[in-house]
């Protein structure tokens, strides 16, 4: 079973995404901050996909992706940004940090699952 790691400071978002992804047959791991997520990744978690929010207190989503890319196991893993942000500058910033894609909230389950199927091989 493929593992998807979701990172968001909103408990509601985590609940929503976990519900959708687990129903779609994925194993879901969660973190509620950039720092907690990075700790999990550094201590051995290697998800098939990471989906992170942009605006989080402390370490934001872009910084998280930038740090995660430094880990050898995650160098080529897909990492998506799921956020309310819509400015192009932010997207460019995320792309430069190593993000695989950008999704704007709210995203419907068929669209989300469609993107996941495209970025995870064999999903």
């Amino acid at each position, binding site marked *: 079973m493929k593992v998807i790691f979701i990172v968001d400071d909103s408990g509601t978002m985590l609940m929503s995404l976990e519900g959708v992804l687990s129903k779609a047959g994925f194993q879901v791991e969660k973190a509620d901050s950039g720092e907690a997520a990075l700790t999990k990744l550094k201590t051995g978690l290697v998800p098939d996909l990471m989906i992170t929010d942009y605006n989080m207190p402390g370490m934001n989503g872009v910084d998280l992706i930038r740090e995660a890319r430094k880990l050898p196991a995650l160098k080529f893993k897909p990492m998506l940004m799921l956020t309310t942000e*819509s400015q192009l500058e932010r*997207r460019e910033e995320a*792309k430069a940090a190593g993000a695989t894609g950008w999704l704007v909230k709210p995203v419907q*389950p068929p669209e989300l699952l469609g*993107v996941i199927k495209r970025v995870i091989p064999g999903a």
Partner: protein
Amino acid sequence: MTLRSRSIAIHGESGVDHGDQKERQRLLAQRKAMVEANKAGFGRAEWIISALFLGALLLFPVLGWRLDSTLNLLSQWLDGWYLGNLPLLLALAGVALLGTQIFRRRKLSALLDALHLDDMDFCLRESCFIKYYKELKQEYKELDEKFKQLQDETRKLFKQIVNAEQHIEHMASVSGAIFWEADTAFKVRFVSKTATSLFGHAHNSLTGHSITDILTSMDDQCPKEEITAQLMRGEPISCFATSLVPKTGAPVRSVLDAAPLRDDQGTIIGISGVITPLTRRLSGNASFEHWSELVLGKEGAKEGGFFRDSAILDRILTEQTRKVSQETEGAAYQISGQIQELDKHVSDMMQLLTEATNWTQSQGGASMSVAKQDREAIGNLQNFVQGLRHQKEQETERARQVIDQIEGLYRLVEIVRGISEQTNVLALNAGIIASRTGENGKQFLVVASEVRKLSGQVKDAADRIDNGIAESVANIQSLFTDNTGSLAAEKEEAFLQRTAQQMTEMGKNYSKLLDFNDEILRKIVDWNATLSNKVMNMLSGLQFQDIARQQIEQVNRALSYRQEYVTKLQSLYGQKEEAMRGVEPFNIDILTKGYVMAGQRTIHYEQTGRQQKREEAAPQIQLF
């Protein structure tokens, strides 16, 4: 009324005519004419009456002479009457004259009243007037001294008033305020000199103007009409953003305070007030100016200032929270709709299950008897099979016993064969020995050979027995087999046929149930898949909570910024200039840094009236 007061009434206080000069002159001329008329003793009226009377005296005889007998009679009558009544006529003339005098005196009295003179003191004859004038002159002298005393006191009082005025001017100068006073018609009587320094008006140029003309009010609670109305009701008033209209330039933001002035009886005799500019230029208090610039913006500038930007911020936040409310309402409707769909879906499934249950029950009734028969058939079959098994076991046991016996025989046969072989060998040995022994052994040889023959016969017999046993075993086995086939073949066959039919029926029924179950299962699988999708959609609807939360957090940040700024302003009030340095004006545009959605930015720029940087429409999903 004294002569002096009379004199003042005519000539005024300082000897110069004040008041309505034309009217006074008219009255004086009229008095002069009356005096002249009274001096002569005869006025116009008297002349007319006298002329008439004299005319009547002279003319009547002439007229009587000219006319006919009627007139003669009349003249005679008149003559008679005339002469007889001359004293009466004279008396009448005297009364008429007296009447005119009275009439004139009354008219003169009215005139004298207008001139504030006592007609009893006024003498109609010159000599009386001259005499009265001397008396009056004496009185005037006495009064003049009193007047001088009064003048001194008035001067002192006036000086005090002037000092008070100077005091008021000093207070105005120090406080940077404008002190003013108006009469009950709201005409300005006094304005302090600070009106010149602050508003550019020449000194005393505002005196005589209505206060509603010289004031300007930007306070919705204080229109100018309300100011005068409230003051006339006897109530003090305080207005924000109300000030003097400046000679040039923009109005200086001020506060107006005014109250009615009352005399000892409580009657309103005027209005007094203060206009306090919010910037104290006269004092040159730079820190206050800076503070007020932070609060109100730069003097005369259209933009800037905490009050103005705070009002704009209120509009921005109102629109943003209204947008959040609309979006969450939409999301709630969406989720509500999904719940209703889910409910319908569950109802559909419940209905399906109810139908299945009903069908099963209906089928169940019909198949009860069939099931009972099936059960009986199965029971019979079980009994039959058990009986058969028992029978088989018995026969197997018997056969085993026989086989055991036969195996026993086999052993015997082997023993016999063994004996036969050994006998044969002995016989051979005996023959060999016999041949070696010669004549004596020849008989023995014959015996040995006979024994050998016997051994051979025994062996043959053993073989035949062996074969016979084998044949018997085969017979038993075939008999055993035949027994099972033949024992109850007929009735078993019938029984089994019946059982097979029943089994077939059972199979069909179960097949039907299986098909039905398959269908139910298929529907349940589909239903589950649909349910899963619907629940997934509902879960994804929770994203709106996060979106709303982020927008409301931004509203809270804006409110906190404003609250902090208010606290800062409060702490800075009255502080020195150095404390104000580096304090930035209230700036709502810095809040745009915290916006995460295009909608927030759009509302911000709409409310501030600033042009928004064009945002490129970006796709909702983008893979890099």
